[in-house]
């Protein structure tokens, strides 16, 4: 086999992992964004001490403990209660829950940056609080936090590599398997890095394109 053939074998194997990596990222992204919006809305608009304390402790726990520990708790730990998740589901759940905490901080700061008059004006023209949130505050908050959301997304795409530690069949998992079978160590890891770059770069480019587009429409 020539070097080129070896490279193609490596690339096609890792591509299979890339699909899993994107699946994990998309699943975690959905959980993180919806969870983050719910948490941020709750601590911004509901003035309940207990609720705020509960959400704050959730956020601090999620943000000050490595994602790897969360994945291990979900994948190995939950088996204690006879909850056995597949590596893929455990990775989506774990990264999504961490992401919800990260995005809650970002979104809450975004809500805070909006002028109070926005809400008052919407209410005074007869919109319900729910409509105010959905049609006035939320879209503006998302626009303000858009760049941070983009950073989070590229971070998330890279963090999917952690899922290899619980044997989710993503890029690094296949890379490590290939190393033990072909010994083309340097080539394999270089290819894996290129693959990550070719996923992360277009996504962050897309986010900044969309940001420019929003700015122009203003």
């Amino acid at each position, binding site marked *: 086999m020539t070097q080129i053939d070896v490279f193609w074998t490596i690339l096609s194997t890792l591509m299979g992992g890339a699909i899993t990596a994107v699946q994990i990222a998309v699943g975690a992204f959905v959980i993180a964004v919806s969870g983050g919006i719910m948490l941020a809305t709750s601590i911004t608009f509901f003035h309940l001490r207990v609720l705020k304390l509960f959400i704050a402790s959730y956020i*601090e726990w999620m943000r000050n*403990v490595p994602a*790897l520990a969360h994945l291990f708790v979900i994948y190995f730990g939950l088996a*204690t209660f006879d909850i056995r998740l597949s590596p893929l589901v455990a990775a989506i759940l774990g990264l999504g829950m961490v992401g919800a905490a990260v995005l809650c901080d970002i979104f809450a700061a975004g809500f805070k940056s909006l002028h109070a008059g926005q809400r008052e004006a919407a209410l005074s023209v007869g919109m319900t609080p729910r409509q105010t949130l959905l049609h006035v505050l939320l879209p503006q908050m998302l626009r303000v936090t858009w760049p941070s959301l983009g950073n989070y997304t590229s971070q998330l795409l890279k963090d999917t590599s952690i899922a290899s*530690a619980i044997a989710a069949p993503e890029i690094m998992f296949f890379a*490590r398997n290939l190393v033990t079978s072909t010994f083309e160590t340097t080539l394999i*890891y270089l290819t894996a890095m290129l693959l*990550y770059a070719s996923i992360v770069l277009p996504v962050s480019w897309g986010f900044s394109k969309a940001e420019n587009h929003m700015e122009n429409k203003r």
Partner: protein
Amino acid sequence: MNSFMSDFYQHWPEWWPRLAEAAKMTAKLSSAGFVMALLVGAILVAMIRGGNPVLRFAANFFIQFVRTVPLLALLLALYFALPPLGITLSGFWAGVLGLGLHGAAYVAEILRGGLQSLHRGQREAALSVGLTPNQAFLHVVLPQALRVMLAPLVNTYVALLKDSSLCALIATDELMLVARAMSSEYFLPLHIFLLVGLFYFAIAFPLSMMSRLLEQRLSRGRRVIGAT
């Protein structure tokens, strides 16, 4: 719930020394990585601000590269892919190098941002009263820039501390690897991984709080000059 807690009490005397030892390793690993990140980050900023276009391009390329590649890929490459090229690193030093290079990209952004946040007039005023460029940097620019940089630098350390858990995958005896070994010995994964999470939390949470306080305190007395 009661039996859950009693498992802790029962095993604590055996677990504590092992986890404490591993926590020391984690602290060493992340601190050495952080020191290296500071050094490399400072060099990168010097390259960017030095005026040589080749060096600036190289530094920017490095930062961009590190930011698009997962830390785990970097660590595995340093540990497994360098030996065939004739460089063999132990798990610990591969970890320090990986964390250092990874952190350096973030440190460089913080240092650059901190220096940029100062008004140009600060340096010009210092030069015009007769300070040499080095004096102006050391006594006027740096002290003011430091207060902007301090809180994000603490955050970077916390991030590196958490990231050091990935060194478990390159056989460094830090918290996560010891926890994995213990969980297969005692068959109590939930107890052990929650406990290890608590170890990380005990170091990371106070630092995160400190960085938040620093941010509030140091920005309090700061007069914002009109942007130029």
